Structure formats: C-alpha cells, structure tokens
C-alpha cells in the first residue's frame, strides 16, 4: 500500500488556493475572448474588455482576480490503495486553506455561524470537502474557490417525471432570468439532474469543473446544453446584466439515475471568474 503524508496535501491545497485565485483556466479565458468577438452591445464589449484586462493585471501583479476569493470547495478522489499518514486528512486540507489564504493575501470570507453570530473565522476555514474513495493509489485534489454572489443565485427544485426535459429547460432559463446581473455574468451554468435532493446539487457543482468547449458525452444532453445556451443568451442580460448577447459562456449538464417518483434538478451558477484547478499526488 502506498503511503502519502497528509503534509503533501496541505502543501497542494496551499498552492492551489493561491494559484486558482490569480490565474483563470485557459478554457475560460478563451471563452471570454470569443464572447468579446461576438458581443453586439458596445457597453457589453467594453465590460468584457475590462474583465479580460483585469485577468492580465491579476497575473502581472499577482493579485486575486476578484476580491471574493470564495469559500474553499475541495473535491478529493482518494485511491483505495493509499494509506494517508502524518495526521488527519480534513485537518490537513484546512491547514492548506489557512496557509494559502494568509500567504496569498486572499480575503477570508467564512463566518462561524450562519445566522446568529456570523463571526468571521479569520482564516477562511472550514473548507467544504467532498471525498470519494476510488480505485488506484493516487489522491486527486480539485480546488474551486466559489464566490458568494453567484452561489446565491443557485437553486434546487424537486421536479417530477411529468415535467420532462421541457420542464428542466424552463427551470434553468427561469433561474438565470431571475438572476439578472447579480451573479456577475457572463456566467457558467452547472445543471445536475437525478440522484436525490443533495446529490443533484453536487452534480451541478461538479458540472462546473468541465472545461468550456468540451462536449457533453451524451448527444441528447449535448443538444439540450446548446439549446439552453441560446435561450439564455437570448434573455439579453449580457455582461454584468447591463444588456448584451453574452449572458452565459456555457451550460454543463450532469445526470445520474434517480427514484421512479423523482426528478431532482439543481442549477449552480458560476460567475465569469470560473476558478478551479486540479492536482494529483
């Protein structure tokens, strides 16, 4: 059995915290550049230019792209042939977040209690950690800092089989229409369908990790994604909601089997700063 010291996980999370907040993935940058070429609204074009210039400034000055450096979302795939040593896994991840957010001068956005006290934890912990045990002897860490503005525009709806794909489409478009300029469009829309109440929400977030431009492997859902993108961009919301033809850069759908009585659907909205990166140890 392969041994892996959790200190290496701390180190990876520390680095990923800083890197994801400064450098946007190439697929997102390319999608923003293509949006600039297509956008009809002069104001929309100007905003897209400001967004692209900001990415350059962030890289050059090593500053976070957005001041909202997010809640630390961590997807972990732990190979079942790995023996983790040197401490507890979740503690090691939180230590990585603590170090990364401090050393990277990133904003600490977590409060200890959601309602009554709302006192800042001052180190951006705890991270939100999802762990899966998978075959193999590697540990894959996907780190995705998620801003509050776009997350607030997300929703889960327990739909029924009778609602069908048209019901799903209307829900997704309506959710984006009601979000308007709030989630910092152009957005990426993650849609999770099936499973259970909580599983579909997870799927929607996982769908945001797919690179923009990579097709859905299922041709039927691929065409639904394309149709939804057109319908969403026809809403006219545009960059920052001030009007334009670029409301979303992509719609990504993920599905899993579900109960005969159910059709859970989740929409997770992601701002244009679609930050995420992976590392395999």
């Amino acid at each position, binding site marked *: 059995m392969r041994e892996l010291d959790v200190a290496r996980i701390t180190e990876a999370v520390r680095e990923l915290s800083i890197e994801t907040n400064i450098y946007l993935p190439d697929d997102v940058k390319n999608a923003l550049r293509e949006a600039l070429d297509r956008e*009809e*609204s002069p*104001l*929309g074009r100007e*905003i897209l230019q*400001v*967004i692209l*210039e*900001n990415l350059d*400034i*962030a890289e050059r*000055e090593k*500053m*976070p*792209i*957005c*001041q*909202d*450096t997010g809640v630390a979302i961590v997807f972990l795939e732990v190979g079942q042939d790995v023996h983790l040593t040197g401490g507890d896994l979740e503690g090691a991840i939180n230590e990585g977040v603590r170090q990364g957010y401090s050393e990277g*001068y*990133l*904003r*600490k*956005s977590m409060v200890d209690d959601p309602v009554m006290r*709302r006192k*800042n934890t*001052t180190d951006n912990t705890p991270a939100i950690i999802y762990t899966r045990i998978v075959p193999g002897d590697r540990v894959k860490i996907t780190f995705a800092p998620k801003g*509050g*503005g776009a997350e*607030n525009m997300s929703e889960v709806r327990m739909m029924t089989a009778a609602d069908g794909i048209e019901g799903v489409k209307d829900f997704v478009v309506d959710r984006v229409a009601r979000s*308007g*300029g*709030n*989630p*910092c469009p152009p957005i990426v829309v993650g849609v999770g369908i099936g499973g259970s109440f909580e599983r579909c929400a997870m799927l929607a977030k996982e769908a945001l990790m797919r690179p923009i431009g990579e097709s859905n492997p299922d041709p039927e859902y691929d065409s639904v994604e394309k*149709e939804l993108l*057109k*319908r969403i961009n*026809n*809403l*006219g*919301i*545009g960059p*920052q*909601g*001030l*009007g*334009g*033809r670029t409301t979303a850069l992509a719609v990504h759908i993920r599905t899993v089997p579900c109960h005969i009585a159910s059709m859970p659907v989740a929409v997770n909205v992601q*701002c*244009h*700063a679609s930050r995420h990166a992976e590392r395999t140890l």
Partner: protein
Amino acid sequence: MKTVELITPLDEAQLAGLEAGDKVLLSGEIYTARDAAHKRLVALIEEGKELPFDLRGAVIYYVGPAPARPGQVMNSAGPTTSYRMDVFTPLLLEHGLKGTIGKGPRSMKVRESMVKNGGIYLAAVGGAAAGIASAVRKAEVIAYEDLGPEAIRRLVVERMPLFVVNDIRGNDLFELGVAEYRREGTN
C-alpha cells in the same frame, strides 16, 4: 452616453445632468460598507446615535477588499452584489446618502427612494477587482475593525471608472440594456 467626472461629496447640481448609461470617473473620499456594516449603521440611525462618517453627500461602495500586502494601498476590491443592501438603503438615502456603488439591480423601493431623495446608483464591473484597486489612492479602516473585510473603510479614489445605472429621474440601465438585446426563442 457621455463621460462625466464626479468629485465627492455629491450634490444635486452634480447629479442633475447624469443619465443612466453615462460613464463616471469618480474622485474623492468614499466609504466601504456591506451587509454587516449596514446593519450596524441602520441600528445607529434608529437609536438616534451618531454615525462613524457624515452621510450628507456621501458615496458608499459595497465592497469587502482582499487584505493589502505590505506596502500596497489596496488589494483587489471589486463590487459585491447590491440587492443584499436594498433593505437598508432607503433610510440612508433619507439621511443624506447621495450615491451607492455595487453590482446587480436594485429593488423598486430603493429606486423610488433615489428619485425622492436625489440619489444615484453606480455599477462597477464585478470581478474586475485587481484593476479597480488601481484607482484607490488611500485606504483606512474608520469603524468596525472586528468585521474584518466588512469593516468600514474611508477610501480616497481617483477617477474610479463606473457606469450610471440609476439616475435621479428613475431610469434604470438594467431595464434599458436588457430590453435592447432580448430576443425571442432560440435563434
């Protein structure tokens, strides 16, 4: 659409000619406040107590900046979503607040209050936070340090680039812009 230089504190005369869609280059002192600070400010007004800064002619920027590095005036500092402050804003406008800066649309109550009290709402580009920081010349925490990123800061800004969303006549750039680019169906 025109570009207008505005200097704080704002008064009615400066705002009279502004229209939704105009570009603004804002200079002078502005104050940062978001959810938690708004709650405290409104509580102070309701208790008849003095505020940590003079609201008359003031501009509030909805932002919680990233912490500054040593030697850096301001780290990334883009706008947060404004609707969360909607419930607090009319009272502040009644007490002299003239401008707010954020992202996303405002409620009808806030829009009506802006018309009634002669206030404007300006949009900064959300997520363009590293660029916006370069317009900030000075920054100091003046109240509620315990709130960390949500503390009230006095900023001195120089030609901070913004768009007029709501002018004092009740126009709304979100409504105007979206209506222009909306299409029916999936073509």
